[in-house]
């Protein structure tokens, strides 16, 4: 606490930490929000997708020594394949059914994939080293800051802009948005809606995979990491408003700041601060900062 008041450099570092954490979480939460926005499914398995991303990174970059970038690509590709299998094999039977059944289906995936990870990667904590040239710190003039964390803070906004352009500025994005409005009308117009659905699920899952791969050097892959991240993502998308990309971006940033500064002001209680924030937001705006009210009767 005293450090906060006396040292501007310390504050500066904390601000960077907050952004870096927030942006890493944004990548993962964006996938969750995207899947919800189009498919109207809350994907509990998103955390386990993230965990698989981190483990794939370990295998590719650490075990097989194929390099960091290959690891990220492999994580994205691996999750894309898993997503196609899950969506075509299981999910497609449940669109339009009760939300409860969809939730439970994603939970079944959590249980099965969690065990699968234990069989493949064991239960030990695995460590992934920083990519070449990023293990050190960068001189920012007033202070040094870890290069890798800085890179995370930059990748987040790049992905945000990419997703924004994809959804708001391309024909495919327009079709996707139309699918959230009226799926039947869209398919009557000759658009292949199932392809849109599987693609969205694939992109969402791949984002979780990339997020996990990027987080691997900081959060060592270990069983149970899926449970923590899914709750963090829930808090972020609820704060931002489900299905809103802007909301997720802002929510992730706010979460990063509250979590980081919370841990500086009252060490160990940062999780609780995040929940308090959630309650305050819901009191003022029940649909989240950028969300729209659900239609009744669904």
């Amino acid at each position, binding site marked *: 606490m005293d450090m906060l008041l006396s040292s501007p450099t310390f504050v500066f570092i904390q601000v960077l930490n907050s952004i870096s954490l927030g942006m890493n979480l944004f990548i993962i939460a964006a996938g969750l929000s995207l899947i919800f926005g189009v498919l109207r499914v809350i994907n509990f398995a998103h955390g386990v997708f993230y965990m698989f991303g981190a483990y794939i990174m370990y295998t590719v970059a650490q075990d097989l020594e194929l390099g960091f970038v290959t690891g990220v690509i492999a994580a994205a590709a691996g999750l894309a394949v898993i997503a196609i299998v899950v969506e075509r094999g299981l999910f497609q039977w449940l669109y339009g059914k*009760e939300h*409860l059944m969809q*939730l439970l289906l994603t939970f079944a995936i959590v249980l099965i994939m969690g065990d699968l990870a234990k069989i493949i990667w064991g239960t030990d904590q695995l460590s992934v080293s920083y990519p070449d040239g990023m293990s050190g710190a960068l001189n920012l003039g007033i202070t040094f800051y870890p290069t890798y964390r800085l890179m995370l803070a930059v990748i987040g906004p790049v992905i945000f802009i990419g997703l924004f352009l994809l959804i708001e500025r391309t024909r495919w994005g327009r079709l996707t948005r139309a699918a959230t409005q009226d799926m039947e009308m869209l398919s009557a117009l000759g658009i292949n809606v199932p392809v849109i659905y599987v693609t969205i699920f694939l992109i969402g899952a791949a984002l979780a995979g990339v997020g996990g791969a990027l987080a691997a050097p900081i959060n060592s892959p270990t069983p149970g990491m899926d449970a923590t991240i899914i709750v963090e993502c829930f808090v972020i998308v*609820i704060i931002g408003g489900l299905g809103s990309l802007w909301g997720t971006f802002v929510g992730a940033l706010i979460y990063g700041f509250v979590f980081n500064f919370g841990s500086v002001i009252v060490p160990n209680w940062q999780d*609780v601060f995040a929940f308090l924030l959630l*309650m305050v937001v819901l009191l003022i705006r*029940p649909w989240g900062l950028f969300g729209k009210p*659900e239609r009744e*009767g669904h």
Partner: protein
Amino acid sequence: MGWNMPRGVLISCIVVVTALALVPLADSRYLIDISTEILVYVLFALSLNVIIGYSGNVSFGHAAYFAIGGYANAILLTTYEWPLILSFPTAVVLSGLAAAFVAYFCTRLTDIYFAMLTLAFAMLVWAIAFKWRSVTGGDDGFVGVNVPEFIDGRAPFFYFTLVIVTISSAVLWMICHSAFGQTLVAVRENITRAGFIGVNTRLMRIGAFVVAGSFAGIAGAIFAMYNRGVYTESAFWTESAQVLIMTLLGGMYSFFGPAIGAATLYLLERFANEYTQYWPTVLGVILLVIVLVLPEGLVGLAKRVRERLAGGN
């Protein structure tokens, strides 16, 4: 009215309770332990069904109230040396209050947010239990619970559990079949229409949540004494998921469905753990079967089989 049980159900209940009352005569510690644990889970699952089956909302954080009941009872009994007659009701009231608090936020939203939010609040309870080491014991758990002498022992504790769970289930039955319970069903079936005929739908949903939370608190308070300890895992979301699966496995549109589901899942887990360490996978597969084939649970399956046998089609 409508509080009276159909005669068949009443007789089945009497038979089950009597059979359970005879369990300690077999003089098997294993059997008594299993029966005690099943009873606790039965009450836990029945309580959750007030939210799911009757009010039609999904709670993914029901373990929170179980844990609050457990921690409160354990801490009051041990740290503050309260007598059971005070600590137990206080623990139940605290669980109910926590449920009211969460419901106040959750019922502002429709079902999708509702489920996520119940989970988030449950994880808040878990985080507090984990971090508030001086009171809850943190990740070591709260151990050495001061169990009152008159129920200190396997058989006495089993009878204590049997009495409390039987009375609680009877009360839950009455609540679910009262005007309140019937109104909840109306809200579940069509919230807009229920609102139009003058039902305060939000208050009803909050009411369901409080009832469910309180009875989960009872189950938790018993379990804390049974284990002589409370651990953070009892508030973890996987615990919430487990009780949800119990409820659905049995069948959420039937009052006793969740009780059947709780007993079945508990026994399956015991059984599976002797053969494999991959219980989560088994559970995942059970879940897939429920979702894809048996959305109305075992009770729904039984009904279908009976109709088929009766030559319906």
